[in-house]
């Protein structure tokens, strides 16, 4: 009898615990909607950090936040050699304005280039907690708009500071890969 009571108690406990299972929270380790991962390269095909780069999407008031911990204007600036840009979930293209040396007040070093990215979207089921994620395919078919357009020039010309853009991977599946290489 005692053993049966124990079993019942254990079952009751299991019943209680399972209500707060970890699968209620979407873990940060789970790959969900990826951002566009961009790397910056210098002349000799080596990674090169940018200086005070500010990136803003057309139609959005605020630039991308690169340093969420900082409250000053420098939260919008990056000096890294790689950045991650979100794509618009409700459109098939997004235009970003890349401003180099954004803190320059003299206007001599401040240079701006616009890149339009064209892509297709698909939704993929992840899990109960994460729901669905969206994956993107940068256009790579002849009858679709080019994957990228630099400063509205087709075929692309060198920009004000960007020399060349290279699509490393057309299908965006995770953030552990590089999708676009920008040479400057």
């Amino acid at each position, binding site marked *: 009898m005692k053993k049966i009571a124990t079993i019942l108690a254990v079952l009751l406990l*299991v*019943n209680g615990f399972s209500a707060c299972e*970890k699968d209620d929270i979407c873990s940060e380790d789970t790959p969900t909607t990826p951002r566009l991962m961009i790397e910056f390269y210098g002349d000799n095909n080596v990674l090169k950090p940018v200086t005070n780069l500010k990136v803003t999407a057309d139609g959005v008031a605020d630039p991308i936040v690169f340093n969420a911990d900082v409250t000053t204007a420098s939260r919008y600036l990056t000096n890294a050699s790689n950045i991650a840009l979100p794509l618009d*979930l409700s*459109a098939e293209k997004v235009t970003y304005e890349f401003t180099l040396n954004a803190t320059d007040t003299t206007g001599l070093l401040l240079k701006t280039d616009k890149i339009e990215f064209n892509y297709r979207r698909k*939704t993929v*089921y*992840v899990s*109960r907690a994460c729901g669905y994620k969206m994956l993107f395919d940068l256009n790579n078919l002849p009858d679709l708009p080019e994957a990228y357009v630099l400063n509205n020039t087709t075929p692309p010309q060198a920009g004000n500071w960007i020399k060349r853009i290279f699509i490393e991977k057309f299908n965006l599946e995770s953030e552990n890969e590089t999708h676009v290489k920008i040479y400057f």
Partner: protein
Amino acid sequence: MKHTLKFIFSSWILLSPLFLHAQEAQKKDSVPDKTYRYGLRVGLDLFKLSRSFYEKDYKGLEIVGDYRIAKSYYLAGEIGNENKTVDDDRLNFTTKGTYFKAGFNYNAYENWLDMENLVYIGLRYGVSSFSQTLNSYQIYNANPYFPEPAAVQPGEKFSGLSAQWVEFVAGVNAKVFNNIYVGFSFRINKLVSNKKPQDFDNLYIPGFHRTYDGDFGVGFNYTVSYFIPLYKTKTEKAKEAVKK
């Protein structure tokens, strides 16, 4: 969690023969003269029935039954139907379907005199056939920068889904008066097969309930049943007394 459940399962399986043995040992020194009634017990799960009234996203009905085949063994089964809408943070879906479970119960309770109560453990094999409708979902985006798009409402229906599982049962069934029994049982289920829809998952399976970490589920029922007596037997001692 999965490991905890595994541990519980395995310790349970390990322990059960021990305590079956213990019960058999007890039998020898308590042999009262009594008759055993055999028959069919049918009942209704009040837990599912009442939830159908107070939970607006749930409708369910379960009929339970068992048939005594030996002094301590009963063939047991459940048949039911559920219609549940789950509204999670990211997903809203409706599952509809019918299930059937069959197996046995072992009554570990040694009744005194003419008591006919059950404290049992049992095993079931469950089969469920159902459909799922994905009512709406929100795309998960860890980096909101653009305005978040409205929830997608595909209303897509995935039919012809099925699942099979093994269920461990532990419960109590007490005779309250005449042939009326009231009981409850707890269940732990483990999926054996699961036919999932394309680009979605079986997050709720009728009869199995919510799926945890892939292939585990838990259940509970509260039943009221009626016992239909079919025939009786007497204990050895009572039989001998009759012969003399």
